[in-house]
């Protein structure tokens, strides 16, 4: 992977001016990154993110990691029969018996 530094304040200011205020800050990019999981962003918002990411290593990391988590969750929640999305844990014998009794009592 190519190494690109985090954005300097100067570069950020210059880009922001060149974009006529379209260039989002890191704070805004992090907010938009989250929003993008839930809704389609406007063209200028997507463009702003793209441009920002070219210069900003931290936001690239942030965004990749959020997408990684999201992919993971989606992959394992797709089919409960195949992939357990849950903790591996056992019911206690006591609870197991309680459930069985409840089912029996309600089966009549």
């Amino acid at each position, binding site marked *: 992977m190519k190494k690109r530094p*985090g*954005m300097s*304040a100067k570069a*950020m*200011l210059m880009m922001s001016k060149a974009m006529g205020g379209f260039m989002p*800050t*890191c*704070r*805004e990019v*992090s*907010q938009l990154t*989250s*929003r993008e*999981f*839930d*809704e389609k962003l406007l063209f200028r918002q997507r463009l702003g993110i793209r441009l920002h990411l070219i210069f900003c290593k*931290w*936001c690239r*990391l*942030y965004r990749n*990691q*959020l997408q*990684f*988590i*999201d992919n*993971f*969750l*989606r992959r*394992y*929640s797709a089919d*409960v*029969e195949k992939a*357990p*999305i*849950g*903790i*591996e*844990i*056992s*019911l206690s014998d006591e*609870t*197991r018996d*309680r*459930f*069985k009794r*409840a*089912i*029996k009592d*309600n*089966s009549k």
Partner: protein
Amino acid sequence: MSEENGASKSEKLSNPQTWVDVHGDFLFGYAILRLKDTSTAEDAVQETFLAALNARDSFRGQSGERTWLVSILKNKIIDHFRRLSREVDFHNNDIDVIDDDFIASGPRAGTWKAGQRPSEWVVDAADLAEQKEFWEYLRKCIDRMPPHIGMVFILRDIENMKNEDICNVLTVQPTNLRVILHRARKRLRRCLEKIWLNTERSER
């Protein structure tokens, strides 16, 4: 005992007496990731079995028995959050002021504070094999979230519910939901970075 996963292809349910042994642990694990404490999770599973018992006749067999039981459990969990949401303040914004990751003012306003920048994650596909571990960490991280943030995160990103449905269940405004989701994801990322990927791993 019926087939192992309960993923029976027939359109009939197995004997309810076998449900606890076949699906009990799975449902419990499913519930405990989403509900904080053991007793709430146990209650949800018991309610699921009883509701399934009553709804036996409506089982059509398009999905497996386990999927069907999980869909009932999902509704129990959503009901639980609906009740809980009445006691929770969804407009609580205090935390984030203290918790801000970005510089507030000056020429670098809006950029990452030095100590808050994301670090590189060394995770690859092979690590996904350790998914069991991942759920444990996920649960720990959700437990650390304030209740209203945790609830929203579970319904949206784990249950994959639609935003507008979540707004209805929890009685939250869409704009507010957006802010809460942003905070949830931000917190989760940071928490996983701390407890899953860096600190605890390098100690081994």
